[in-house]
């Protein structure tokens, strides 16, 4: 299973130094572009700083010659003291795995113009739109540079450090007393409108502002083509955000030729909850409960990514028992998520709620464990920097914990999975609707920066747990599931495979839980007011059930709040490939394709 099915595009040009591919690739790039590449000089930061003029050429060299063919994440950073805006690109090598080659581009804050990377990596499209929306970067050559999370006409670029929200109180938490001198003062009482709103000075509504719906069709243009045969009209229809099968408040504008889809534009931001803006006001530890609410089906693994990023920055170790419990919780979360994803995919295919009703039984068992461990069914807020908040409970609803886990892992879950497999996998409708629909080739899957089951169902065997192992995953015996057809059916099958692999991992974790019983679950004393011991940046990534979840955190020395906090959300970036998968299919197929990507809007919009 460990063979890579993809050859490096131009493997011949790879430098031979196998010890440190990052240093080797950096050396090659510096030799090629001596005047345009500088070393990162800030303490605690990594990577190379590329001049905006050569970003496209450097990216092409990275992709085609050096093997860093996967653009994982694009992060905008506001360096307000230096009057600059910075864009951080994390690129990985799919074939070799390993850490990221970080490329940075700095532009003038007042005139942030730089070339778009969409021609090199189509997966950059929505991430660049996000950077434009929230920071105001102007990408030259971007095919469709519009706001994505806010709306057209929104005032300002909210992630810039000098942009204040209407309920702005102070720059950083913890805020001062809200009862100064015994008088309660609330932000909304100071606002003349009594709401969370603000308007630019002197702005008066003309009452002609477009309603929320109309602005989204702006990017859709179509012409009537001259063709022989049956003439069909092209129609643009809207789907969502209130639609039973969009998995939340997702919206698509579809252009149909007859019944065939010829254009698709996702519209998002209906659940944009300003995770990053709030995250930069919060202290480090205050962000943990917010990460729960990103991908709210799998809160445990969201915690994991964030604590990994901050632990890297703080330089703390995690005790053995805490690591095993983390893996236990994260793999159970993967099963919860995939049960949900498979159930709702079948829901979208017409098996209305039935598979879900079966899977709920096991899902509720796992949620019972989460509830008795962390106190909450969904929003667990369980992990801490250097360990965990609580140890495992003594019992779950009256059953001793180890017996409960044993029953769950050896009996209930395998049976539920087998039952689901028997009932669904051979089902004629699932096969007819799934096989060959929503095809995404391996090359496209990489180019569009997809991650997780979407990437692996297209035949790319890439899993962060193996490519850049974290926690104790390198000691565990499991296979990276891979399927090769890249259609809905394979994306369904791969989730079943992954649940089986998770069960394998869980079975290996159980004896370690027994062994480490009673040992500590957090290193040192639990800390609440963390001051970062050093300045620097950190990128923590985990293999979330939906794909690679990354947290980019930067901090200044002795600071209690992150200076920049960015989430690389797999759902959001996987959606970049939705149009590619959907073209040529019917509207009913789009519903199933969307279900097979498995998005959660809390994470798409953040």
């Amino acid at each position, binding site marked *: 299973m460990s063979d890579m099915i993809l050859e490096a595009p131009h493997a011949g040009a790879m430098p031979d130094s196998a010890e440190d591919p990052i240093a080797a690739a950096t050396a090659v790039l510096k030799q090629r572009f001596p005047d345009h590449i500088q070393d990162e000089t800030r303490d605690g930061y990594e990577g190379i700083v590329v001049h905006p003029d050569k970003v496209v050429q450097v990216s092409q060299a990275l992709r085609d010659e050096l093997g860093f063919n996967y653009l994982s994440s694009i992060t905008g950073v506001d360096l307000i003291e230096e009057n600059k805006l910075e864009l951080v690109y994390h690129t990985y090598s799919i074939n070799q795995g390993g850490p990221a080659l970080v490329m940075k581009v700095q532009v003038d804050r007042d005139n942030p113009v730089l070339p778009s990377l969409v021609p090199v990596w189509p997966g950059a499209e929505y991430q660049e739109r996000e950077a434009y929306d929230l920071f105001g970067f102007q990408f030259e050559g971007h095919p469709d540079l519009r706001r994505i999370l806010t709306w057209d006409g929104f005032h300002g670029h909210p992630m810039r450090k000098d942009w204040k929200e209407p309920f702005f109180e102070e720059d950083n938490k913890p805020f001062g007393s809200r009862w100064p001198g015994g008088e309660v003062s609330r932000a909304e009482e100071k606002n003349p409108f009594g709401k969370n709103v603000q308007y630019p000075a002197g702005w008066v509504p003309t009452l002609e502002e477009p309603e*929320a719906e109309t602005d989204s069709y702006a990017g859709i243009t179509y012409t009537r083509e001259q063709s022989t045969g049956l003439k069909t009209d092209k129609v643009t229809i809207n789907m969502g*955000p209130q639609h039973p099968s969009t998995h939340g408040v997702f919206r698509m504008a579809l252009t149909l030729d007859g019944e065939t889809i010829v254009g698709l534009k996702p519209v998002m931001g209906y659940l944009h909850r*300003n995770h990053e803006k709030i995250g930069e006001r919060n202290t480090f530890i205050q962000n943990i409960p917010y990460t729960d609410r990103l991908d709210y089906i799998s809160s445990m693994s969201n915690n994991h990514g964030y604590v990994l990023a901050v632990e890297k920055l703080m330089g703390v170790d995690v005790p053995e028992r805490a690591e095993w419990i983390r893996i236990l919780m994260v793999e159970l979360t993967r099963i919860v998520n995939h049960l949900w994803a498979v159930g709702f995919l079948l829901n979208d295919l017409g098996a209305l709620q039935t598979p879900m009703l079966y899977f709920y039984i096991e899902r509720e068992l796992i949620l019972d464990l989460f509830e008795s461990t962390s106190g909450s069914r969904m929003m667990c807020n369980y992990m801490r920097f250097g360990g965990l908040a609580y140890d495992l409970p003594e019992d779950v609803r009256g059953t001793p914990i180890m017996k409960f886990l044993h029953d769950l892992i050896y009996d209930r879950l395998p049976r539920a999975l087998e039952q689901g497999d028997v009932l669904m996998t051979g089902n004629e409708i699932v096969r007819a609707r799934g096989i060959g629909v929503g095809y995404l080739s391996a090359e496209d899957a990489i180019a569009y920066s997809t991650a997780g089951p979407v990437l692996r169902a297209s035949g790319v065997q890439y899993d962060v747990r193996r490519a850049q192992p974290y926690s104790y995953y390198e000691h565990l015996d499991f296979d990276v599931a891979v399927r090769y057809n890249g259609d809905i059916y394979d994306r369904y099958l791969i989730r079943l495979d992954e649940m089986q692999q998770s069960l394998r991992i869980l079975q290996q974790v159980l004896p370690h839980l027994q062994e480490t019983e009673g040992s500590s679950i957090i290193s040192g004393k639990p800390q609440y007011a963390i001051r970062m011991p050093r300045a620097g940046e950190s990128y923590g990534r985990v293999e979330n059930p939906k794909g690679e979840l990354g947290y980019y955190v930067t901090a200044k020395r002795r600071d209690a709040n992150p200076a920049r906090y960015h989430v690389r959300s797999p759902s959001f970036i996987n959606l970049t490939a939705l149009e590619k998968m959907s073209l040529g299919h019917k509207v009913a197929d789009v519903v199933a394709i969307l279900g097979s990507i498995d998005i959660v809007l809390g994470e798409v919009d953040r």
Partner: protein
Amino acid sequence: MTTTNAGAASPDIAVPDEVQNNVVITNLAKLLDPIYNWSRRNSLWPLGFGLACCAIEMICTASSRFDLSRFGMEVFRASPRQADLMIVSGTVTKKMVPIIVRLYNQIAEPRYVVSMGACASGGGPFKEGYNVVDGVDKFIPVDVYIPGCPPTPQALINGLIALQEKIDQQSIATVPWYRKNDPTAEMIPVPRLGPDLYDMRQVDIIKKEAVKSEAVTEAS
């Protein structure tokens, strides 16, 4: 509905002893209300409308373990025209609130709104966000607020029982949707998205504030 000693309530009407337990003597208005309320409280059809995390718990409530159909509420309708109850399950963002108000306007009366969770009730943990509405009740009237982040299925059921109790208190004679010119029964103007969200009912305040802020910028 009392069934004991019906004759005693209206001494003018003679009720034979053997049918005492089967006879209710009342007037038409008093008879209609209990029937009307009983039938509505037990067949509330929610709008199948999920916003965020709370929607997941709402789906769980409708599923096998918690079984919302015990209350006659399992019929989630995809169209607001067929629904009676809107469970606002999650964070209401500025981009979403025009759609929520439009959906609310499209629900045929009688209609009820349950604000599920901290976000819908008051912004919750995301209240300070620039794209978050600090409570759906700033735009549409809410009948029941359910605390929690997210509320457990039990809490949601408790809130829905509270709504049923509220329905029990209503009378055909006073409910707004049967009265002429009742301001609470009118359509709610759909808010719009300018440089920020604005409520059509607040245009006057916005104009007044605009004059003030212009004066401030000129002075400075």
